[in-house]
């Protein structure tokens, strides 16, 4: 029995060691170096972290606001239309990110829109499906009876939305936000296409590695990882306290 149990445990453990533990150790090893520490001591690094953070926050918020009505609409459609619309939502994934971004740039350049808001627009445009799909999944599960009960008790459709729909679709809101926020935090290439001055932490890491400064690149990556893990942990705590797990 015990032997069988261990043999079942072996593949996932080996997988985790090979693809998670070892790379992280290598990363940490090169991060705790003179180059790594110098990069972290540099004030400019933290400016980039801060910029990445607030751009990710704003992008996630805009994504959420733009996706909710779309997801709500799709969830209200008949099955036939739902499938078609969901297909359309994921259709952009069939095109390469770079191609999409170039296409967007060709649209934005003629109208001279290339400031930070254009960068956020490009990010939102790219990450919308990651928000729409989890939102759709949780809105679709919402029992219509609960919305009726709320209106029956005197709540207008708007109050019903804030007091019933939003709290009950919080798992979707949280999942979508995490799915957008974390990759946007480390996004690179995309911002510089729109505006070369909007360097984010992801681009800086890319730059360091490109220059062969592995220590600095690893240090920034490690900080970004710790930050991401921290956020995910807070998120799981929040979900537990809401009883939504």
């Amino acid at each position, binding site marked *: 029995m015990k032997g069988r149990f261990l043999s079942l445990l072996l593949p996932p453990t080996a997988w985790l060691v090979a693809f998670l533990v070892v790379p992280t150790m290598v990363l940490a090893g090169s991060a705790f170096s003179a180059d790594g520490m110098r990069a972290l001591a540099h004030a400019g690094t933290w400016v980039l972290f801060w910029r990445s953070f607030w751009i990710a926050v704003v992008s996630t918020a805009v994504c959420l606001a733009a996706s909710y009505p779309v997801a709500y609409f799709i969830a209200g459609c008949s099955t036939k239309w739902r499938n078609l619309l969901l297909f359309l939502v994921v259709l952009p994934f069939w095109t390469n990110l770079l191609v999409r971004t170039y296409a967007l740039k060709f649209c934005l350049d003629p109208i001279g829109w290339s400031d930070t808001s254009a960068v956020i627009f490009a990010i939102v445009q790219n990450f919308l499906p990651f928000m729409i799909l989890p939102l759709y999944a949780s809105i679709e599960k919402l029992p219509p*009876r609960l919305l*009726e*009960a709320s*209106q*029956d*008790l*005197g709540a207008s459709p708007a109050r019903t939305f804030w007091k019933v729909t939003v709290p*009950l679709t919080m798992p979707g809101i949280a999942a979508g936000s995490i799915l957008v926020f974390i990759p946007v935090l480390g996004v690179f290439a995309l911002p510089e296409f729109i505006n070369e001055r909007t360097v984010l932490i992801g681009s800086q890491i890319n730059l360091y590695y490109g220059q062969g400064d592995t220590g600095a690149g690893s240090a920034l990556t490690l900080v970004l990882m710790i930050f991401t893990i921290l956020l995910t942990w807070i998120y799981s705590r929040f979900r537990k306290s809401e009883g939504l797990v």
Partner: protein
Amino acid sequence: MDDYDVTLRGVTKSFGGRRAVDDVTLTIRRGEFFSLLGPSGCGKTTLMRMIAGFESQDSGAITLGGADMAGIPPHKRDVNMVFQNYALFPHLSVAENVAFGLRIAKSDDVDGRVRRALAKVNLAGTEKRSTTTLSGGEQQRVALARAIVTGPRVLLLDEPLSALDLKLRKGLQEELRRLQRELGMTFVFVTHDQEEALAMSDRIAVMNGGRVEQTGTPEEIYERPATRFTAEFVGSGNFFEGTGDGRTVRTKDGLSIESAASGDVTLLVRPEKMRINGGGGLPARVEEVLYQGASMSIILKAGERRLLVEDANDGALARVRVGETTTVSWRPEDVLVLPR
């Protein structure tokens, strides 16, 4: 019109060409326990959802407290509903579920009113609990407390007891009736359970195929059914189709039954009005004896005709044996006449 809380005039509603509610006219009095009784698909739930405002009628008019409800959305109607599957908010505690309507209305003393409403439905002390930890019966009580706490003009109940087991259902029936008396609130109760409707209602509207077959007190519905549908749906019965000459009704299989009816009629004798071995009457063979504890049902065959007799389990019926031949009789005044 002051003593009417709800009136429906010629209310009709179709779904995809099928008439779910067909020209219904009803008046529901203030403070009465009114039941909409009928089989599933008879339109009773649609009718109730129209009173609540979740559906709008194709034609006809609905008034609440004298005011026409055309175009008034559900949240502006002074009615609350107890949903069939409770529809409690899973993200809110018991107390917050009950407080929902009060908070919307910005009432004062929310905590006190919630506490008193929960006490009224025998759920004192459950305020802090999550609704998902409650049993079905308890959830139903929370839904009830949530609906009565804001003091609506009319309470609509959509088969609120159908998901509960028999024992619990009987208990909640009593409680609902008590609550309705104490509050003096108008209850509109939707059910397919005829026993439940008879036991609880001041008046009943029997519905069939989107139409109201008959409206009346439980006694009127049971003792003087206006149609064969009502007679069959509410209780069981022995039916005799025949032609009357003013003194006797003759059936196709050759029975002569004493009745003042004339023309083509259906006669009804309720099973509990029939007597076995009463001396004289219709000869019949005992096919089946169904023991039901407090009462007994005997199924007999008189020729090709199947008869049902019910009586209290007081010993007289216990001697009846399957296969034996006996006689079935009834008093002339227990023969009900239905039009054909």
